[in-house]
């Protein structure tokens, strides 16, 4: 039963990945990201049959931060910065979409061959994590829109979190929480920078940020 739910959740994650690849508008991207954050952070509930209260509290905290606070901060950043809505792709959407599909397949194949310690026997966990990682990287590298890049970073972090689920349920939550705070603070600072970028260049196209070079 639990394994089934876990797999469905992970499929949702993969779906969000595809959306992320395909979506051309920043708000949509944010929604995808928020959804993804929620899904990712409730997974531990289903992986571990009976959780300690600490784990429960921590997972809820994660849910709040990943699912609410982070998307909210980005959203506010956009609100402040009346943004132009296109993510300004370097790689086109269709190409990205196909890349995403290929990526998921590749991730699944690779993780077959890897010898991964896992307390959940879900086959999708690791592939999903990898594809989240790479998605983040992809958005960071293939979108000129600064907001899209920040979102990419967040997806990267989501992926890492997913990869660490197995570890996080065992580890001291204080440590996990520290990581989480770091991510949050990082996103906050990025949001601030986004606003400043907008104010200085009244645009968030990072192609404007190429003055410092040799």
């Amino acid at each position, binding site marked *: 039963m639990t394994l089934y739910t876990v797999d469905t959740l992970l499929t949702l994650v993969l779906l969000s990945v595809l959306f992320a690849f395909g979506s051309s508008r920043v708000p949509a991207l944010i929604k995808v990201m928020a959804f993804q954050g929620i899904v990712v952070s409730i997974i531990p509930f289903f992986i571990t049959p009976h959780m300690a209260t600490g784990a429960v509290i921590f997972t809820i905290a994660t849910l709040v931060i990943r699912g609410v606070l982070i998307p909210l901060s980005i959203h506010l950043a956009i609100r402040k910065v009346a943004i132009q809505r296109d993510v300004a792709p370097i790689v086109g959407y269709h190409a990205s979409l196909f890349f995403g599909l290929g990526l998921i397949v590749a991730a699944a194949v690779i993780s077959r061959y890897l010898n991964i310690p896992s307390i959940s026997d879900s086959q999708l966990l690791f592939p999903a994590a990898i594809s989240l*990682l790479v998605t983040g990287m992809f958005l960071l590298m293939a979108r000129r829109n600064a907001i899209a890049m920040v979102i990419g970073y967040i997806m990267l972090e989501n992926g890492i979190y997913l990869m660490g689920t197995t570890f996080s349920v065992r580890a001291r939550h204080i*440590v*996990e929480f520290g*990581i989480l705070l770091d991510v949050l603070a990082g996103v906050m600072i990025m949001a601030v920078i986004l606003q400043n970028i907008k104010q200085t260049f009244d645009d968030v196209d990072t192609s404007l940020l190429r003055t410092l070079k040799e």
Partner: protein
Amino acid sequence: MVEMVFITPFVTGLLAFVLPKAVSRQLLVLTGAVHLVLSLLLWKNTPQAFFAEYFAVTPEGLLSLLVISLLFFLISIYTTGYLAAHSLKSENIFTGFMLLFLSTMTMVTLSDHIMVLWIAIEATTLASAPLIYTHRSGASLEATWKYVLICSVGIAMALVGSLFLTFSMELGGVTSAMSFSALTPVAGQLDPAWLKAGFIFIVVGYGTKMGLAPMHTWLPDAHSEAPSPASALLSGVLLNCAYLGIFKTNKIMVSAGLSDFSGTILIVFGLLSIVAAATYILKQTEYKRMLAYSSIENMGIIALGTGIGGLGVYGAVICMIHHSLIKSSLFLSSGNILMGYKDRLIANTGQMAKQMPKTFVAFFAGFAGISGFPPFGIFIGELFIIMAAFKTGHYLAAGIFIFSLCVIFAGFARQVMAICFDTPTETDTQPAADQKNFLFKEPPGMVWPQYVLLLTSLILCFFIPDALYQTIVDAVHAIGGGLQ
């Protein structure tokens, strides 16, 4: 009470946001002094940490901690003069984040748990980002943006690497705490494949922060855009903190018997960084960027020495200490130059020997030291590294290293001599060229910190107190370095 050392600056940093400017300046120096005292105490009697699982006093950590607090103290003194001469719009934010930055870096040096180390290092990024953006210019904004994003991504990689370490623990059936001190003895049981993968991710991740090519890309921008005291901190100690992460991980690799693997990777990154530095120093037009690239070079040298092992590790540690001392003094002097000439371009400076004799002495001595001339310590470090490279048969590495050193020196010397001796070319700086209109009078507070730093390096080149020597030796032995 180990934690006090980083909690104190954290608290004072928070205070500095709210206190009036003058007070917070004093607070900066005061905290520096207190921090210095605390870390000296820590060094004298290495106590147990309260959260023993997360924090511990390790020799390599102690070394960087001592360097950090000495540097910060001197830099804070310089900073007061700097802030007096150079009014910032948001001074409190500057001072506050300086202190937070100090606290996070201290945390790095003391943290023993893999994840805590990661948290601390990521925290340094976040604490230093506002420092880079102090000038509120478009360029500084870009620099900050690149700094935050690239470093965050890089360090995220380091987090992945740390996770891989946990995997290797799982597979190896190691149930000890995730602290370096706990893992090092049992490293043999760890699953080698995941360990290697973890090392790769961690080296790339922390290497991004340390400024190893090709992940160094943020470094010259950030260091050149930040106000000079901040650049001095970034270049002098932040890089060491990142190096600490690699160093500790390498410790595990060595005791797991994978030193060849890790060594080769470190050597490659080291050489790449040195060559990259040579590439950009050769025709550099801005002196702060030049210094930044020279930091990349020195980080490369340190990585190279660590990778070579044996005497090279000793050389690397010596290089690390002296690079911090000398490079921070150089950045402070560059601050004076910037104030004097109001220009970042080397072409618009000149005749510093006449205009700013005190700064000139500091700057030139720093240059001589950083390019491996005695009586400054980097000379010894480079000597040892070269010797070790030959000893261990890394002839190609030694060749590339020596060649790049020559190229770097050629470039560096030309720029520095242009700054110090040439007559300014641009017409708009002609007034700056003659003494009357040359406004910047070097206040002692902005000169003798450099002298103290250089003097320390000079003394350490000839005499290392036994206690410090013992610490170094412990650190070196920890990753299988020898002294012969």
